[in-house]
C-alpha cells in the first residue's frame, strides 16, 4: 500500500533518491565531484611462513593530499586482511561489511573462517554493483587449507596469485616484484621485497607516498606494522 500521499517505508541499503537529480546536474554542465581516492600502491606476496601485505599511506583528492596517515590495510579477522585501492569510502565500507559477515560466520560455525568466505562475499558484492563500487583489493589470509593471496578487480573478478600489486602505483611495484620475487622466501626477505616494491610506487607515482605499512599473517596470528618505514625524503 503506497501512493504519493503515503510513500513506502524506505528500504535498507543504498538510496538512489538523488540519482536523477545528479545526472541532470551533470547534463546541465556542472562537473561531477571529486571523491577521495586512495591513489595507492598495494603490494603483497606469499612467503614460506605466511602472507605479507604492504601499502603506502597517502589518500588524495585530485592533486590534493587529503590524508597523510591513511590506513589501507583492512583487517577482516585474525587470519584475513586486505589491502585496498580505489575510492576510499568504498574500501572502508567494504571492510565494515565483510568483517561483520565473517564474524557472524565465525560465531555460527565456531571455527576459524576460511579466506574463501571473505573472498566470495567481496566478489559477489562487487559483481552485483557491476564495477560501480570502485575498489581493487588484494585479499590475503591463512587458514586450514594453507596460505592464500587473491587479487580482486572492481567488477568482481578474482584470481589466486603468489604475489601482486594494485593501485595507481602498481606498475612500478609489480615490476619490482616480477624481477625479485622468489618462492620460499623467509620473513626478512619478504619484508624487504614488499618494502622495496612499495617504495618503487612511492617514488614513481604521485598519488602514493607518506610512508609504508606492513601486515604479516602467519598461522600464529596477524602482525600489523604501522609506519614500518617513513622514507626520509618522502615525509
Amino acid at each position, binding site marked *: 500500500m503506497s501512493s504519493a500521499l503515503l510513500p513506502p517505508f524506505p528500504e535498507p*541499503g543504498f538510496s538512489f533518491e538523488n540519482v536523477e537529480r545528479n545526472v541532470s546536474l551533470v547534463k546541465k554542465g556542472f562537473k561531477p565531484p571529486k571523491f*577521495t581516492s586512495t591513489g595507492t600502491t598495494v603490494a603483497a606476496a606469499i612467503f614460506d611462513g605466511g602472507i605479507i601485505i604492504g601499502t603506502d599511506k597517502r589518500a588524495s583528492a585530485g592533486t590534493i593530499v587529503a590524508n597523510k596517515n591513511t590506513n589501507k590495510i583492512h583487517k577482516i579477522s585474525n587470519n584475513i586482511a586486505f589491502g585496498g585501492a580505489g575510492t576510499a*569510502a568504498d574500501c572502508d565500507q567494504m571492510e565494515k561489511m565483510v568483517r561483520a559477515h565473517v564474524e557472524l560466520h565465525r560465531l555460527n560455525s565456531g571455527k576459524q573462517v576460511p579466506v574463501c568466505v571473505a573472498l566470495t562475499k567481496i566478489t559477489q558484492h562487487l559483481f552485483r554493483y557491476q564495477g560501480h563500487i570502485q575498489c581493487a583489493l588484494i585479499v590475503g589470509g591463512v587458514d586450514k587449507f594453507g596460505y592464500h593471496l587473491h587479487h580482486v578487480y572492481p567488477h568482481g573478478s578474482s584470481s589466486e596469485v603468489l604475489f601482486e600489486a594494485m593501485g595507481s602505483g602498481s606498475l612500478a611495484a609489480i615490476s619490482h616484484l616480477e624481477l625479485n620475487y622468489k618462492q620460499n622466501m623467509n620473513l626478512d626477505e619478504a619484508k624487504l621485497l614488499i618494502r622495496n616494491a612499495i617504495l618503487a610506487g612511492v617514488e614513481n607515482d604521485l598519488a602514493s607516498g607518506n610512508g609504508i605499512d606492513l601486515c604479516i599473517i602467519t598461522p600464529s596470528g596477524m602482525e600489523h606494522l604501522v609506519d614500518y618505514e617513513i622514507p626520509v625524503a618522502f615525509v
Partner: protein
Amino acid sequence: MSIESYNGGAVMAMAGKECLAVVCDKRLGARLTTIGMNHSKIYEINPYLYVCLPGLATDALTVYQRLRFRVNMYELKESRKISPQVLCSMLSNLLYEHRFGNYFIGGVVAGLDPATGKTYLYAMDCLGAITIGTEGFVTGGHCEEQLYGTCEALYRPDLGPEELLEVASQAFLSACDRDAGSGWGAFVYIVTKNKVELKSLKARMD
C-alpha cells in the same frame, strides 16, 4: 564549476589543550553572486559536539535534518548522549547510503569530552570516507586547499582557548581572503570544559 562550489563556503576545526575551535564563514552564494551574509555551516548537536556541513546548502540542510533525526532516535533508544566517534560513523554511513546519487557536501565532526578534556576531530568527503584529524585540525569546503596551507603553517599543539581563537581565526581568515567563494566574516565556537563562546568575526566583504 562543480555543484559542490555553487554556494561557496568553508569550515575548519582546530584542537587545543582541553579546548576546541570550530569555525565557518558567513557567505551564502549562488555561483558568483552573494545572496546571504549570515549563513552558518556549523550545526550544534550538543554544547560539546558540532558538525559542519560545507558544500551545497540545500543538501547540507537535508543531511542535517536526517542526521538530527538519527541522533535523536539514538539518544532516546540508548538513554545516553551521542559521542563524537558514534556521530562520525553515523554521518559517514548516512553519506555512504547515498553512494550512488550522493549529497554534494563534505563533513567535519568536532567534539570535546567534558570529563577528560580530550578532543575529537574528523573530516569526511561526500561519500563518507573518514579522515581522523591527528594533525590537530580538519578542514572542508570551497577553500580547503588554502586552509590546509594556513593551518599547517600557523597551528601549534596544546594552545589555550585565547591563543587557539587567535590562531584559528588568523588561519581561517587568511585562507578565506584568497578565495572568492568564501568569506564575509566568520563564526567561531570556542569550546572548553565549562564554557562555550560564540564569536562573530568581521572580515573583508568583497
